[in-house]
């Protein structure tokens, strides 16, 4: 049943085994929109928009480091919530990164399955 407040439905997007890689990262498409699933250094999962919000580079080729995902184009760094935490090419002291966030989809990992809370409107 879908209502105005329905946050979406849980959908299996991968298995824990599929993400058991030296570089734990997979591209995921949900309702036609591209995302990237990764495990950070703390072991937690992130499912965030696949294109860097700077100029659109493909984060599936990102550098999995510093407990997040770093875009190879200009080093913008995102945590597992999609929040930008660093813009190393911007001037010292710039706070622009605090305003930058990639779309994020909540995920949970239960009994070897990774499930995402897919929004009904697929925003």
């Amino acid at each position: 049943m879908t209502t105005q407040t329905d946050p979406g439905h849980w959908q299996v997007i991968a298995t824990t085994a599929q993400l058991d890689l030296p570089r734990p990262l997979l591209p995921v498409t949900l309702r036609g929109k591209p995302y990237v699933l990764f495990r950070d250094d703390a072991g937690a999962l992130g499912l965030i928009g696949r294109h860097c919000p700077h100029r659109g580079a493909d984060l599936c080729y990102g550098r999995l480091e510093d407990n997040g995902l770093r875009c190879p184009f200009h080093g913008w760094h995102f945590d597992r919530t999609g929040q930008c935490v660093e813009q190393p090419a911007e001037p010292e002291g710039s706070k622009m990164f605090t305003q930058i966030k990639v779309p994020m989809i909540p995920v949970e990992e239960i009994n070897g399955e990774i499930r995402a809370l897919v929004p009904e409107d697929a925003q």
Partner: protein
Amino acid sequence: MISQELNDQMTRIGPATQAGGVLRHYWQPAALIDELAHGDKVPVNLLGERLVLLRDAQDTLTLATRVAAQGEPAVHYPAAADIEIDTNGPTYPVVEMKGVVFAYLGPGRPPDFPNFDCFRAPDSHVFAFKGLWECNWLQALEIGIDPAHASFLHRFLEDENPDDSYGKQFRDKAEGANMPITQLLREYPRPDIEVDETSYGLKITALRHLESDLTHVRITNQIFPQAICIPMSREMIITQWHVPVDDENCYWFTLFTSFDSPVDKDLMRAQRLKEHVLPTYAPRKNKSNDYHYDPQEQATLTYTGMGLDINVHDQWAVEGMGPIQDRTQEHLGRSDKAIIRYRRLLRGAIAAVEAGRRADLPMQNRTTTAITGPLSNDAIADRQNWQDVCHQMDIARRAACSWDATL
């Protein structure tokens, strides 16, 4: 972020489009002379038009329209014998310059060529090549006017010996410092960027302030509407056009120009043929094979994990944005200063073309042939007088040049 309408205006290049109207007022690289090895009819896919370069018995070149099947690939390259000329389609003037056939697809008289170094140097000192990128021309151009990305995208986690650098970008030593440029770019990732409007487009200065009051200065240029001119090594500069095949594919055409020895064309060609597939000049590393991405290499050697060839890094960055970058989702920063200025120039040019004010476009009047340079250089100088040092280094390089490179 910009609107979808503005993104369409700036990126679409078909015959009745706004950006397409601007590009058609300038000579466009259409083919390499090397491609005439294909025969006397060479397919040319340019600005959304399906054309053919013809060579007659007197070696005269013309560009005509060819008959194209619905839905043929963007870079369709039929055998000469299979090409049928469409006599109802337009024909266009062409001229050969330094191994590249330039075509004029616009209205009225074509503009003069500026007296840039790549056109002034003798044939022995200029080498031409091209390559396919599967994306819109504007994102291909914008990476070339973004001086900050070299500190990340092209980062080498180790430095190789600059003595093995011939014919490659970013492998030389910076002039005035005993430090490979790779090391300098890595250690100083936040350049100050200055952008100046010029007669030819934009002069872009990236300043990296080093220790002991030294500054690394890298001067690059945007040549309106769709070229860049940048240093490659102490010996050579690159002049590179990003030429639309259609809205979602483009070729880079590059003239490598030497201020020192004649260009070793056999070596330069062999280096690049190894990375491309003829006859379409499609790169061997591409989206379909993940650009040979290697996570282990990314962890230890290069920032991208895609090998040492920086052209592949650029190709990945621009193709990964999608066929036409969705600029309604972008967030430009201070590092994108030149991109912002360029878009202002392009929008001004779109307005001028629509209003019939051709003389307001860059390099469209009688003074175009007097435009020289542009200065493209990497240098290290005292923080206080980097402008003088850059200028003097350029003058010295030109004075020592075997061909007339004086300004």
